[in-house]
């Protein structure tokens, strides 16, 4: 595989100019995650409204192009979606990065799938998978209000 399939333009662009890299005002959910091997860290903030819809989602942190792009694309894509929908999409994304060839969730539109599949190149780089999944695991932890900090070394 060519290294350029991992570092596609869209990833470099999101890595360089991450969307939603800020702290949500009046957030009501949050979680921290870190990747001790790389030193990547992320703090995800969520504002869920009364109908459990994501009114705003943002993140703070630092890390490599893959982890920043992944968090940027994630926050961009999930804003406005409902909690249950979000959980399904996160599972689908993690499943795809881990083993599934494609994204399967019906909650994802075609262009959204295309966008997420840009991160699929990381599957060929086992040491970098954690960079792509850190913010997603952290998001779930925020939704579930888990107090524990996400640590990529403790994940499967």
């Amino acid at each position, binding site marked *: 595989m060519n*290294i*350029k399939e*991992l*570092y596609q333009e869209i990833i*470099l662009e999101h890595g*360089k100019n991450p969307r939603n890299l800020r702290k949500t005002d009046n957030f009501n959910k949050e979680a921290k995650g870190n990747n001790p*091997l*790389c*030193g*990547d*860290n992320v703090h995800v903030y969520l504002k869920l409204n009364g109908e459990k819809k994501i009114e705003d989602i943002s993140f703070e942190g*630092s*890390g*490599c*192009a*893959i982890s920043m792009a992944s968090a940027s694309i994630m926050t961009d894509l999930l804003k406005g979606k409902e909690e249950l929908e979000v959980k399904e999409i996160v599972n689908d994304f993690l499943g795809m990065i881990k083993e599934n060839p494609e994204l399967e969730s019906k909650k994802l539109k075609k262009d959204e799938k295309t966008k997420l599949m840009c991160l699929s190149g990381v599957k060929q*780089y086992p*040491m*970098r998978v954690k*960079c792509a999944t850190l913010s997603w695991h952290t998001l779930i932890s925020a939704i579930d209000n888990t107090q524990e900090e996400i640590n990529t070394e403790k994940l499967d």
Partner: protein
Amino acid sequence: MSIDNIKKEFPIFNNKVHNNDLVYLDSANSSQKPQSVIDRVNDFYSKEFSNVGRSVHYLAVAATNLYETTRSSVQKYINAKDKNEIVFTKGATEAINLIANTFGQKYLKEGDEILITELEHHSNYVPWHFLRKSKGIKIEFAEVNSDGEVTIENIEKKITSKTKLIGITHLSNVTGAILPIKEITELAHSKGITVLVDGCQGAPHLKLDMQDLDCDFYAISCHKMYGPTGLGILYAKKKWLEELPPYQGGGGMIKEVKKDSISYGDLPNKYEAGTMATAQVIAFDKSIKFLEKIGMENIINHEQELIEYGQEILRKNNSVKLIGNPKNKGAVLSFTIEGVHPHDIATILDEDGVAIRAGHHCCQILHDKLGITASARASLGVYNTKNDLDQLNSSINNCKKIFNL
């Protein structure tokens, strides 16, 4: 043995990485192994294997002799006064833990201070942290200066009447700074302070003379010295090994065991409980022979030439920033590229067969001080050439191109 053709001694370089020649620049992490060391492990298991120090049969006696031969070789190599000052451990980490544990147990009490530096690897910090938790000792850090060195003045500044031990690296695994151990030891001893040196990076790249350095303890990692993994060496002055309590209990370290009393074995057995890394110890003799054949002076000259060349070409490369500029520098080139995270650098370089390390290199204190979370590190071994450094530079350029820099 000529250093120019030394790559031939290392079979790993016959392999391709992503269809490219391997450019191995991660020796500070672990060095590659020469054929003679690999063969020795194989031969010992194939023809000579037995446990050591216990049985009286032919193989056991022969293996014990080989095991002790390595101890003598190490003693000569590092110019220790006595063969029994050499203790085999599972690594330098265990060597430092051994001292922290036994020295801490016997000599440290609440309020006592251990002085380390901001350059230290986690393995020369965390063991002392355990004592901070269990005994309430304090840990002080001698400051690193803007060149990535720790000067003797900065050490002296942090010495107090409560300082009991100075734990210090010989050669920084991030900035490459070589610390003046002899002078530091002299200063420490004049104030009655004990000195432990983390020699993980010092041992593969510097000439070692324990009697000249005069430090109390020196920890060595064998796998960074072209030797097998799972093996380290603790050098300790004999008086310490006699005075300190044993570290681990078990077979091999005892003299007599009764229901109500136990007496411990003589040196060095007192500190080598259980079955040791026998094959690794025996093969390590070949690593020492390998280093002796090339000659430490030749190694130092070769590596110095490379370090200077590496610094020169990387300094010319825009957006590459070298970490540290110590006057005495060995074997390590750490850097950052503005706009590219070190992990992205390492992945892209790997595609070209260039193996470097990215991260905090087990030196989070130093990286915090530098205000970065990670750095990229190219580290050298005897087998590296200017060509390797040119390849590093051209892969860095490729990396910059991918990131549109």
